[in-house]
């Protein structure tokens, strides 16, 4: 059954890709087992030509609309595009509203595109648990570009940057005090920084922000607006340039990511094993720890 699924995914069958994405998102034990088998089989089928691009920014910073415009340019070049859009779930009732397709109506309805919104389920404050697995599925099924769109809040930026080749941070034109405080984390992680919504009354402010950030950040920074097509082209050029000139960096990133992924798989495996271990109540936590390790060694 898995082999059939693998075959239809590599054939690019939409329904199978979609089903596979559901399986890797699923929390049941059965699906987790299938996931392990599926991804181990898909992983070797990935090509190195694929471009995985992370897009992070606060709600309302215009990420989806920008991906829509950027994606349209790629479609003109006959590229195949997948978008994984992670939406925050409501902490109160657990449901979520996944409105990304309304902001990416062209991509959502194009045969060379696959847009999949994913509820975040509160993991890492905004990124889905299964992002890496989803990326593997997309890359095995022949997409040229994969966009991972997330709501950036603190920790999330690290998690997303660990799943992609090129990490784009989407900021808004800043004013006054905000201009001073560029987050340190962004500088470390971002490959490209955008000051988006640079149109109308905000255009001037956006250009000021770009210049101000350029003083402190040693990164490509540009102003973008979906209403000014040349700025979207600028973005596309920057990304192409990144992949053309930084092959070795991307290679290193990918190897690094596999390590981290393996580690996190091991940690979650250990964590669930840990949950199954019953311990007698003990007064000293250090003694208790030693007992746990002892037991773990026997179980694993």
């Amino acid at each position, binding site marked *: 059954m898995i082999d059939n699924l693998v075959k239809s995914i590599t054939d690019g069958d*939409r*329904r199978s890709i*979609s*089903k596979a*994405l*559901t399986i890797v*998102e*699923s*929390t*049941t034990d059965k*699906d987790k087992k299938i996931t392990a088998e599926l991804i181990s089989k898909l992983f070797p089928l990935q090509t190195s030509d694929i471009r995985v691009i992370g897009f992070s920014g606060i709600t309302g910073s215009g990420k*989806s*609309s920008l991906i829509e415009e950027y994606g349209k340019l790629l479609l003109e070049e006959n590229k195949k595009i997948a978008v994984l859009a992670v939406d925050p*779930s*409501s902490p*109160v*009732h*657990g*449901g*979520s*509203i*996944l*409105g990304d*397709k*309304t*902001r990416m*109506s062209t991509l*959502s*309805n194009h045969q060379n595109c*696959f*847009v*999949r*919104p994913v*509820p975040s389920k509160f993991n890492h404050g905004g990124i889905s648990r299964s992002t890496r697995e989803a990326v593997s599925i997309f890359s095995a099924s022949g997409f040229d570009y994969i966009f991972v769109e997330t709501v950036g809040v603190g920790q999330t930026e690290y998690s997303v940057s660990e799943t992609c080749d090129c990490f784009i941070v989407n900021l808004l034109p800043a004013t006054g005090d905000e201009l001073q405080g560029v987050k340190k984390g962004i500088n470390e992680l971002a490959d490209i920084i955008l000051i988006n919504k640079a149109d109308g*009354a905000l255009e001037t402010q956006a250009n000021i922000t770009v210049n101000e950030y350029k003083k402190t950040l040693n990164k490509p920074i540009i102003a973008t607006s979906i*209403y000014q097509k040349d700025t979207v082209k600028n973005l596309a050029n920057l990304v192409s340039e990144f992949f053309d000139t930084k092959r070795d960096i991307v290679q290193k990133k990918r190897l690094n990511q596999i390590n981290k992924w393996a580690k996190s798989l091991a940690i979650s495996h250990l964590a669930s094993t840990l949950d199954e271990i019953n311990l007698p109540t003990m007064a000293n936590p250090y003694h208790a720890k030693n007992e746990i390790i002892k037991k773990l060694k026997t179980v694993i």
Partner: protein
Amino acid sequence: MTFDQKKWQQLAEKEYKCSPEDKVWQALPQLKIKPVYSKKDIDKNTNADTTPGLAPFIRGPRATMYTGRPWTIRQYAGFSTAEESNAFYRNTLASGGQGVSVAFDLATHRGYDSDHERVIGDVGKAGVAIDSVEDMKILFDGIPLDKISVSMTMNGAVLPILANYIVAAEEQGVSQDKLSGTIQNDILKEFMVRNTYIYPPAPSMKIIGDIIEYTSKNMPKYNSISISGYHMQEAGADPILELAYTLADGKEYIETAIKKGLEIDQFAPRLSFFFGIGMNFYLEIAKLRAARRLWSEIVSEFNPKSEKSKTLRTHCQTSGWSLTEQDPHNNVIRTTVEAMAAVFGGTQSLHTNSLDEAVALPSEFSSRIARNTQLILQEESNITKVVDPWGGSYMMESLTEEIYQEAKKIIKEVSDEGGMSKYIETGKPKLNIEKSAARRQADIDSGKEVIVGVNKYKVENEEDVDILEIDNHKVRISQINRLAEIKSRRDENEVSKCLKDLEEASRSNSGNLLELSVKAARARCTVGEITLAMEKIFGRYTATHHTATGVYKETNMDENFWAQIENDIKFFEKKNGRRPRMLVAKMGQDGHDRGAKVIASAFSDAGFDIDIAPMFSTPKEVSNQAIDNDVHIVGVSSQAAGHKTLIPDLIKELQKNGASEIHVICGGVIPKKDYDQLYKAGVKCIFGPGTPITHSINEVLKLLK
């Protein structure tokens, strides 16, 4: 004798058997209405005794109001083909109607010719299909356009439609300066609620500027814009939100025209308004009175020389949303109450809804009753004998003042954001209206707000009401044939020249687009071609969506229900490894998304993962979205009669693509007699108007078990 507050309170306490304070009615979140009012309530109110016909016009734009001439009975209608609509208008005019009001089909609204692939399910639905000036000539055949005023509900394809109307009149021998009537042309509210826009906001506002400029020069008797709150109320806005956003829209249009270089007095007298009138009787009357005062103050900021510029003249329509599918004859009474509120509020013209409008276009019988409702008010009740009979009422004057103050606050908020266009970009007005709608739905579902026949005094066995059926396929074929005929007879060189001129003017932002559209219409360019010429430059707009969450659950506080739902969802999640996931979709060109939004919001409150499909999707597109997102259910919201073709097509697409396990459910304006056909096509649940959402949540969970 004068009012004695203390004594009244003592008496009231005995009669109520509780404190009179407990009887204060929280009519809206920011508005309380007391059980009794007295002179004290208006002592400080300097506007409680104003003169009709004089600023601030609280008591009416004209001194004599209905004592001189009653309001105009103007029934909005459009029936699929130009021929049928024409017959209906002639019949209406012969039996007491005083003006024509045209409803266009959805394809025309969105600037598509009837032969376009995106509108297969929309042609002839919810109004008349107009593809060219030839259709327009048939529409007004035998109706003297220099005598009969014509109101046209058109916002998206304003340019080709207005141009076709002008040319149709011209070929009837009536020059454009003699034309009287109104085109809705209110694009701002489309971006907030109704979604029948075509181009993005900036070029859309330029088009409005061009229309105001053209009509103020060439069509002195024509109202170039009808600033509409009606659709906001229908989408769920309460009367204060409706009032405030409508007047803020009006202010934005004034500024647009002034930027075009026009003088305020050149166009302000030609701006007219359009409000919805719901069942909140006192509030609706006060709303219209407050509206006139606010508008006269807003216009005064622009220093008009003529008093006429400051008057707010309005058309009103009774609320379609307040009508119910259940026990539909009740709708006649609802409409009568609403019509009276509009009349007491001092409207200039009125449309009364037909009793079957919750499920279909009006039949001949239901339109007669609707028209007669107004005739009886005008000719039997003697209501018209006194100007503003509520003037001086302690309650009404206080309420007028309060609504005025509250609306003024919101208008200021809009101005502080830099005007309505900017405010719309923030997404706030749409979100506020949706919150108001979700709150209202929760009140109805929990029984706090009573609707007779729906959530109280329900009828066991309902009798069927005969409704009008439209053969959409037949209409489309006949339109396609006529299009082919026109295209075979016209001068193609002239056509392509006209279209190029339009495209060029759009590119260079020069010239008047209405003037160029008139030339194009004369050359027999079609509605779709004229629209497309500009679309090449402006692009076609799709709105992005923000959806309110949490409001429904907060308002409907039935804890047992929510606890039960939470359990069901947890159980589902444990078994399936994820939450139930539903795609909420609208198909075709119908932009009324109140139902879809309220459903999305309430279901996500219940714990569903909700996907929202882009507006105006085709069945094939929705099927693809459902497959890509791997949802359990597609919920289709249908308000405009496309369900019989679009929903079965969707099911076929899903089956064809190996996704027949995805359930399709639907809701909205769907007549009972179509249920069987839909069930046979594979629809799993149908939720008609008035279904409590709590009920649909339960049914959907049952379906998933």
